[in-house]
């Protein structure tokens, strides 16, 4: 199967879930593995990378998990196809820059993707909707165990799995949870939370990982250290912190409703106004406003059945997805117009926010007017 056929379908992990899963978008676990006797991809010569690919690719394609999946060399993918995969979190931005000697193999459900010759010989990840760290670990652990029977991994009795970057050595595991945190952002608490999380050895990053901006109030929380703790220990620590962040987010939302309902309704109402009437909109603005609509649904201001459509727009309005759907390369202005059109189409039947349930001044402390 071609990757482009696969990405023509929605990713399974986009499906909406319940309560906690309204805040947590996805759980992702990736493992870094290398062959014992070959130079790491960044140091290997092209011929060596090709040799490694020829050793690893058949082993990966032969996995039961990858039956009916898609496998593609990076050299055979167009820039647009690569960008679609990045937007779906199936490959990293670093991997998208690779060409001959690198490949990606994705299972049919798009829940497991294996990058060959990224920074390490193998970067395999399991991606799941909502808060499902344990299930994601179980799945990728199984894939890894099946692969280790066929490939001779670089493993050190004291240091564990050896990786190109010393920051990944040990378990080689990076577990990350993508969370939608508009409450903490609107309440100006997000920086405090980020600092607190950083202090305990976890990282908070933007939408596309390291060094990327937080858009649409989406944040990735992940473990920073990989040596000295077992995989379940790392997951438990991360899970606990996520639980606390979720609690803070819920609390921030309650707080906004109780103390600053006018400001909150204003933001959501404006997002509704702009998204349903814009004729040209950039991807960053679209994400930020879609985030507010999503918050509106969580708060019961919009009917629940619209959730799926709004969630889908997060992906559909990304630059590469837009262009892929329109089957042509578009200039920035054309993209912005098309994006606005897609959004208006999806939201045509969305009623204005039902503000009756949230009445400003209804026993809540009076707000300052200069907000």
């Amino acid at each position, binding site marked *: 199967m071609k990757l482009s056929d696969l990405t023509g379908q929605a990713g399974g992990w986009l499906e909406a879930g319940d309560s906690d899963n309204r805040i947590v978008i996805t759980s992702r676990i990736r493992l870094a593995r*290398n*062959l*014992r*006797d*070959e*130079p*790491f991809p*960044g*140091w290997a010569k092209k011929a060596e990378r090709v040799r490694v690919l020829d050793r690893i690719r058949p082993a990966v394609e032969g996995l039961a998990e990858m039956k009916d999946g898609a496998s593609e060399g990076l050299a055979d993918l167009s820039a647009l196809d690569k960008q679609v995969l990045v937007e779906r979190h199936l490959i990293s931005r670093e991997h998208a820059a690779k060409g001959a000697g690198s490949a990606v193999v994705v299972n049919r459900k798009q829940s497991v993707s294996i990058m060959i010759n990224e*920074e390490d010989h193998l970067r395999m990840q399991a991606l799941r909707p909502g808060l499902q760290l344990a299930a994601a670990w179980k799945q990728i*652990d199984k894939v*890894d*165990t099946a692969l*280790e*029977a066929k490939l001779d*991994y*670089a*493993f*050190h*009795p*004291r*240091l*564990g*799995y*050896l990786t*190109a*970057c*010393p*920051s990944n*050595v*040990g*378990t080689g*595991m990076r577990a990350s949870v993508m969370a939608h945190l508009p409450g903490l952002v609107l309440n100006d608490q997000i920086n405090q939370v980020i600092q607190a999380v950083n202090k305990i*050895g976890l990282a908070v990053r933007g939408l596309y990982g390291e060094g990327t901006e937080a858009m649409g109030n989406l944040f990735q929380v992940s473990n920073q*250290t*990989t*040596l*000295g*703790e*077992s*995989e379940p*220990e790392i997951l438990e620590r991360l899970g606990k912190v996520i639980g606390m962040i979720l609690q803070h987010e819920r609390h921030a939302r309650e707080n906004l409703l109780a103390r600053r309902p006018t400001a909150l309704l204003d933001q959501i109402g404006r997002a509704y106004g702009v998204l349903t009437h814009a004729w040209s909109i950039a991807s960053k603005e679209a994400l930020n406003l879609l985030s507010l609509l999503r918050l509106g649904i969580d708060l019961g201001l919009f009917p629940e059945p619209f959730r799926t459509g709004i969630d889908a727009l997060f992906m559909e309005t990304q630059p590469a997805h837009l262009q892929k759907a329109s089957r042509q390369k578009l200039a920035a202005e054309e993209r912005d117009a098309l994006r606005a059109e897609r959004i208006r189409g999806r939201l045509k039947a969305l009623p204005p926010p039902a503000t009756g349930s949230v009445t400003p001044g209804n026993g809540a402390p009076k707000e300052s007017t200069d907000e």
Partner: protein
Amino acid sequence: MHCDVCHENEATVFLTQIVNGKMQKVNLCESCSKAKGVADPTGFALADLLLGLGAAQQVEEGTPEPVRCPQCGFTQTDFKKTGRLGCAACYETFAEGLESLLKAMHKGMRHTGKVPVRLQRALELGSKVETLKADLEKAVQQENYESAAELRDRIRQIEEEIHS
């Protein structure tokens, strides 16, 4: 190895510091280390302080023969450039320098997680050999030569199994 400051005396004080994830090494003789007051080298850029700004770079470049990884030819300078290692064997080649880097980066220094199934047996046997060797030493000390011979044979047997 000569002192990096006076370039005359034999260096006896070897300092390593990680600055922004990069390793700096300074070698000093006893009198220079005292003159520079290096009792507690924490909290400042070592080479820069002792030898002037930018000196850390020179110290590194001044080393005549850079250590190369026998498996892939990677050097410490390459690591400085990329922050990535060349191959699995680099972890042994540069073990000394990596030690402090790993200590600063991670929660612990020993992997306690998953182990590939095929290595599990070897690791288990390895720790068994350690125990038996301790027992053997004890037996020899107690002049219990009969059980010492038994233990020696068992160790030999297991070691053969590991290497097969």
